[in-house]
């Protein structure tokens, strides 16, 4: 197993067939998620790293060894990238053990079977060596694919620098219960792996649960790279905010209130914890996650004293299991504010369309970014 190796460095640029403009690196032991809507180019980026697609320009290096630049483009066989395909891509005519052994061509023949068994054991598939893919469940097939990719990353050609693990929507083809188990498995396994792991997913929850950092891709362009918290709570632009599903996106201006920056929005002044580097007087877009909006009790006597009070009319109340999603229309703002309340609360207060409601916008959850 490669330890204390260098990072995977990726820089890709091209116009056709799919535009690409992204650069990121991934340290050994780090799990980096490429997120974005379908067609955003995340799978193409992964295929470039594996050597299955050649970008027009850029460079790919793993632990200092060049896999791709202006002069070199190593074929997949000379790279050390374990690839977990979306549909597993196990070879149907080979047993689980043979599928893993296929990736061990750089291991002395006498050690291959033992090494492959060891990898199968690490993904908890001991005893299923002889099964063919069709005799395994979807989750088990995915584990074999993972074992095969790890085997390749661990013992690929030594000249190719460090091994990397690439996963293309690895959990999308299994049912939800199995997906949860596999995610936990990966989270456990990656603690023992000292290699860069790049995960492609369109599932933000999955990215948040598993990734140390994420890269938001849109039309092949990396819009923001940062920790899950950074990207999901502090998007760098309205485009990222929309891509990560922040629906409470409004326009406003940075103002000054008692010498401190505040947010002027729809004829109101909102207290903010941080102006995020936006100068007073500048136009901004701002977001607040649904969790940053707190419903006031209608009988609350201290309504006026609450932080950033906003009153509006409920236009929609959608019961979604234990919580109810409420849409609030606010005077002076065309966009509605969407937030959640427990279904119990919503029912008790008879919250429904046409009713007035007031909420608090938590100052520390308001995030500002330069206007589009």
């Amino acid at each position: 197993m490669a330890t204390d190796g260098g990072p995977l460095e990726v820089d890709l640029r091209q116009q056709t067939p799919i535009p690409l403009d992204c650069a990121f690196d991934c340290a050994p032991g780090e799990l980096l998620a490429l997120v974005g809507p379908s067609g955003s180019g995340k799978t193409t980026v992964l295929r470039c790293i594996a050597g299955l697609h050649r970008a027009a320009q850029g460079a790919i290096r793993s632990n200092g060894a060049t896999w791709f630049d202006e002069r070199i483009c190593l074929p997949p066989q000379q790279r050390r990238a374990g690839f977990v395909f979306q549909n597993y891509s196990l070879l149907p005519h080979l047993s689980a053990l043979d599928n893993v052994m296929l990736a061990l061509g750089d291991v002395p023949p006498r050690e291959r079977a033992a090494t492959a068994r060891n990898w199968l054991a690490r993904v908890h598939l001991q005893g299923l060596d002889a099964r063919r893919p069709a005799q395994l469940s979807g989750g088990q097939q995915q584990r074999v694919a993972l074992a095969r990719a790890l085997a390749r990353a661990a013992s690929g050609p030594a000249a190719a620098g460090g091994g990397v693990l690439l996963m293309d929507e690895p959990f999308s083809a299994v049912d939800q219960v199995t997906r949860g188990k596999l995610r936990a498995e990966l989270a456990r396994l990656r603690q023992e792996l000292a290699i860069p792991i790049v995960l492609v997913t369109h599932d933000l929850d999955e990215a948040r649960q598993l990734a140390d950092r994420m890269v938001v891709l849109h039309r092949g362009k990396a819009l923001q790279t940062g920790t899950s918290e950074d990207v999901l709570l502090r998007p760098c632009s309205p485009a990222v905010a929309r891509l990560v599903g922040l629906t409470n996106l409004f326009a406003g201006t940075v103002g000054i209130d008692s010498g401190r920056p505040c947010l002027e929005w729809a004829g109101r002044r909102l207290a903010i914890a941080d102006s995020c580097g936006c100068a007073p007087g500048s136009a901004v877009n701002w977001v607040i996650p649904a969790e940053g909006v707190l419903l006031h009790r209608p009988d609350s006597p201290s309504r006026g004293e609450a932080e950033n009070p906003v009153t509006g009319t409920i236009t929609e109340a959608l019961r979604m299991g234990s919580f109810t999603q409420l849409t609030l229309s606010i005077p002076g703002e065309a966009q509605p504010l969407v937030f959640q309340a427990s279904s119990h609360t919503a029912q008790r207060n008879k919250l429904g369309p046409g009713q007035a409601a007031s909420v608090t916008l938590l100052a520390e959850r308001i995030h500002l970014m330069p206007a589009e």
Partner: protein
Amino acid sequence: MDWSALSLSLQLAVMTVLLLLPLAVLLARPLAWVSFPGKGLIDALVTLPLLLPPTVLGFYLLGVFAPQGVLGQTWLALTGRSLVFSFDGLLAASLLVNIPFAVQPVQRAFEAIPREAREAAWCCGLSPWRTLWRVELPLAWPGLASAMVLTFVHTLGEFGVVLMVGGNLDGATRTLSIAIYDRVQAFDDSGAARMSLLLVLIAFAAVGSLHFFTRKVGRRGN
């Protein structure tokens, strides 16, 4: 029973299968996976021998195989042997006539191999050559098996082209199907019947073995 005709027919069928199968793989792979200008034309050419009357095909082959024809002249210069009324010519004609029977099943089989299967093999470090042997050929096996059986049986039964190109020379070009025709012409009905029955049995055994092999592969896949 014309034993020399039976032996000749079997030799011709086995050699046609052995020579044509690698060629079919070579031709079918790009036709299955690569899109290039003129691909439709090649697809059509591959099917053509299936559509032409055997006598028409035989007539044209006789022209190019003749000592003054393009192929006949070259072959004569290379080997000193003739391509008409000889086993060489019979084999060459048989190879051409069987192209659709060999190529089409193999092409369908390669088309059915998902691209990811090959990519997974490459990402495991398998060279294109090893990918062919470890992944592509095993997965295309049912198609290869039916190409082999179809070519074998079709060669045994071919009549028109063989008669046009090879004639009816005992021990050199008289195949079983021509020997049957010969027996009927000579009013030897029982001789014709014995040989006909033999051909039926061989064809039946070949198709039966195809079912056996592909079923076995099916089990392997499950």
